[in-house]
């Protein structure tokens, strides 16, 4: 690639990872980008780096603008290795005068075994540095999504460099929101929120309020992954407001795994019940869908219905996987139910219920257990459960 001007004297100098398909357990079926930004001013400043294998692309982009040795400052908004992985290479080459990071960023870099004698300069929320004509204001965003995370805001350019917030995993050679399909862009952003940020929704609400109170004038949001919000920054801010309030639609997700199709037949009957109540429903087999795809559908679903057969006195491992993952991401205020077939002991439904209760979901039913294969009456009961949940969704 080549550097892309995003504002006067500010360039995207990151890298595109077209081939990554598993991002620490998040399915990135269309790859991602690692965005880094170079600010040309009296103090030349690099904001974040890229994942280690892409350091050549980063440096090549910088070289097309300036000799990297001329970089004065490095700003580290986030220490996760997809952004900080090339810092040591960059520092060796650039020998920056200062490395700006949050207090937690400093701690995290040391814990990642970065040299202690780097010229770290710890900054706090509201603190401003001058680069010459431009200034940078820092906003700590602890736990969005690591303790070290922070934003860098450039008031003269009305530019918010937002680290991992407002980003999405999508490899494109377009750099701006208005160059791609908006619906697809929002779908990738929703997936990112559901799988990375959902559990910190109360903090997102607080951050949005704080940003409003600080009166930041923002006309561009440049995240560390995916597209830069040039034409529609308000669209992603409004979406984050909606998602962090955990607003749901009249929608259900039926998640299941099955051994000999008995639990699957039950799942289909539940979906039929929901469909008869005109509830938008997604049937998601754990064999066909990655956990991060399921979580994306959970983001705006009011009802979450989980089915598993019993194997060796336990729920199926795939169901334990999605429930562990979902519980960590903390969806709240959902209607839920469990179902499943069994041969002799039938523990799965009770185990699923335990997870659903731990997540403080409202159980619509004690669960439906079916011995070996569902009879016509069993399937009717499943259909009725679907209808009942459908009515409960509509009442809310």
């Amino acid at each position, binding site marked *: 690639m080549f550097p892309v001007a995003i504002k006067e004297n500010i360039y995207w100098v990151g890298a595109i990872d077209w081939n990554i398909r598993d991002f620490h357990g998040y399915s990135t079926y269309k790859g991602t980008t690692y965005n880094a930004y170079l600010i040309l001013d009296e103090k030349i400043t690099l904001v974040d780096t890229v994942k280690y294998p892409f350091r050549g692309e980063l440096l090549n982009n910088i070289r097309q603008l300036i000799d990297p040795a001329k970089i004065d400052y490095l700003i580290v908004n986030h220490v996760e290795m997809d952004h900080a992985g090339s810092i040591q290479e960059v520092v060796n080459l650039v020998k920056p005068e200062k490395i700006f990071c949050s207090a*937690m960023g400093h701690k995290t870099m040391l814990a990642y075994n970065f040299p202690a004698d780097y010229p770290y300069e710890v900054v706090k929320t509201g603190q401003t540095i001058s680069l010459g004509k431009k200034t940078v204001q820092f906003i*700590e965003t*602890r*736990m969005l999504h690591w*303790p070290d995370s922070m934003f860098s805001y450039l008031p003269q350019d009305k530019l918010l460099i937002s680290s991992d917030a407002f980003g999405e995993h999508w490899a494109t050679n377009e750099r701006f929101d208005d160059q791609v399909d908006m619906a697809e862009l929002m779908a990738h952003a929703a997936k990112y929120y559901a799988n990375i940020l959902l559990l*910190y929704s*109360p*903090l997102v609400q607080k951050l949005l309020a704080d940003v409003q109170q600080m009166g930041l004038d923002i006309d561009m949001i440049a995240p560390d992954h995916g597209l830069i919000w040039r034409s529609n920054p308000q669209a992603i801010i409004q979406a984050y407001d909606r998602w962090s309030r955990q607003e749901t639609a009249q929608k259900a997700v039926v998640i299941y795994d099955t051994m000999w199709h008995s639990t699957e037949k039950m799942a289909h009957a539940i979906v039929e019940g929901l469909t008869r109540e005109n509830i938008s429903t997604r049937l998601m087999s754990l064999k066909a869908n990655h956990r991060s795809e399921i979580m994306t559908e959970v983001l705006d679903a009011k009802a979450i219905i989980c089915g598993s057969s019993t194997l060796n006195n336990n729920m199926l491992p795939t169901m334990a996987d999605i429930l562990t993952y979902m519980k960590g991401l903390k969806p709240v205020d959902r209607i839920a139910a469990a179902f499943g077939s069994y041969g002799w002991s039938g523990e799965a439904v009770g185990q699923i219920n335990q997870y659903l209760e731990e997540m403080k979901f409202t159980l619509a039913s004690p669960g439906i257990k079916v011995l070996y294969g569902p009879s016509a009456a069993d399937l009717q009961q499943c259909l009725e459960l679907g209808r009942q949940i459908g009515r409960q969704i509509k009442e809310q």
Partner: protein
Amino acid sequence: MKKYVCSVCGFVYDPAKGDPENNIPPGTPFENLPDTWVCPVCGASKDQFEAE
């Protein structure tokens, strides 16, 4: 009663408010929180808190 700050994420435990979501009633001093209590924001353990 003293407030305590999570050294990981900055969450402030205010004894006056307690942590009702996790069954800690208002008025519970930090010292009386069970050892199994964790930061409601980031999950850090009690020993990672410092007096404000």
